[in-house]
């Protein structure tokens, strides 16, 4: 299925929950989805007969701009062979987003990683703990305003 068809279908079902389709090169065409509806959008993308996005290839957390974080979903359909990029903006003041770990099991650890390194809260993730950093680490390193702490548990950090 072409990106335009997928987009139009989603737009007709979810209306306001789906933003404008952006097709500026060199970026692969993508659109923004509402962070509070992403779980429903994901379920639709997976189960709709003509889409069948059965695989979440990559989920990335990004410090997007001054006020927003973003979660980027790279989807892929093993059954039909097409791909899709969906983004969600999450405000830094209240970084909450619905989890898609019920839809794709792959999301569970990727969401934990995004929570750990970028710091968004995935509502509905069954086990939202730090995954790569120690449990008692403070802050989220991949934020642009992150300052490396001088000490960790009394040990000097040499950077």
């Amino acid at each position, binding site marked *: 299925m072409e990106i335009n068809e997928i987009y139009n279908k989603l737009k007709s079902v979810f209306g306001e929950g789906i933003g404008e389709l952006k097709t500026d090169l*060199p970026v692969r065409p993508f659109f923004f989805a509402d962070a509070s509806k992403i779980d429903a959008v994901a379920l639709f993308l997976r189960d709709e007969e003509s889409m069948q996005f059965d695989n979440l290839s990559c989920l990335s957390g990004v410090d997007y701009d001054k006020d927003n974080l973003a979660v980027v979903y790279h989807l892929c359909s093993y059954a039909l062979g097409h791909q899709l990029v969906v983004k969600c903006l999450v405000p830094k003041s209240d970084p909450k987003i619905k989890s898609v770990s019920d839809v*794709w099991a792959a999301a569970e650890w990727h969401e934990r990683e995004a929570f750990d*390194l970028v710091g968004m809260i995935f509502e509905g993730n069954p086990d939202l703990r730090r995954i790569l950093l120690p449990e008692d680490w403070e802050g989220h*390193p991949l934020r642009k305003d992150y300052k490396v702490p001088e000490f960790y548990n009394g040990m000097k950090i040499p950077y």
Partner: protein
Amino acid sequence: MAELRTEEMILNMGPQHPSTHGVLRLVLTLNGEIVEEVKPVLGYLHRCFEKHAEAMTYPQVIPYTDRMDYLNAMSNELAYVLAVEKLLGIEVPERVEYIRVIMAELQRIASHLVAIGTYGNDSGAMTPFLYCFMDREKVLELFEIVCGARMLYNYIWVGGLSHDITPEFITKTKELVKYLRPRMKMINNLLSYNKIFIERTAKIGILPPEVAINAGVSGPTLRGSGVKYDLRKSDPYSIYNKFDFDICVGTGERGVVGDCWNRYIVRAYEIEQSLRIIEQAIDSIPEGDVQSAVPKRVKPVAGESYVRTESPKGELGYYIISDGSLNPYRVKARSPSFCNISVINQISRGHMIADVVMILGSFDIVLGCIDR
């Protein structure tokens, strides 16, 4: 007789344990010898290379990608470089593409030999391990001829390669292809079809294909479940569509589709396919300058790219965002081992402790890749 007191036991496997292939910790909840739950604890090797990358220029990131999956540095470089080249919109000379494919396939052979050898070692067979490492050394010698390094190369550059190949490399590669075929036959006889080995691995840790796809499992681990999906054919990159090779899948020749033995045997078979690709490529490398397309300064326009490649461990993706400056705004590596290991709890439940070692080994994980 008084009643026996029974209770669950928590057992720590790792982080320092030979069968975890690095510093991985598994917290096992046990009911006697039976595993009830496996909780992987990651991060012992975490360096946050993604943060480092934001402070460097694009070419400076390449050595960091080497150190992600250190048994498989060429494929990491290739994936990262392809993503940067897509951002820049540059075409590389055909000679470069050919050499890159040869290097990536040689690296796949080296990586699979380690996987096979260490898996034998996990199951208590020491001899195949030594044979595999001997053969892998021959592959590493080839890399040494070309770029001087055995494991971490910084060989594939944005737009080209650091060194051209030499006639010595071509003759030695041809010799290696001839040498490896009978060796693989020997290793298959020694290990793959060994009754003791099959008893240890067949019908253990069965991963159903739909669970595998949903959990993002990829590479030989996915193909072991019978899913015919290989990015070199399904979503071709570089010049893989020019070569003739087969996708190997687990067929249940021994055991059942999706068990440890089938995941293992896919790797043994893939070595033969890699040899076929190398044979086809080595004789048809076109003439050219391997550095003619290397840009003086890598400064892509604002934008982003996501490239997926088939590394020996599975689907390795790089998601790069550029803000138009000399440093990447964000580099995200989608590591195959990270996704593969996430199903371990699901498929280990109900097995014995010793089987967890075999299940873990069948994923062929590298902790540098998981923890990044």
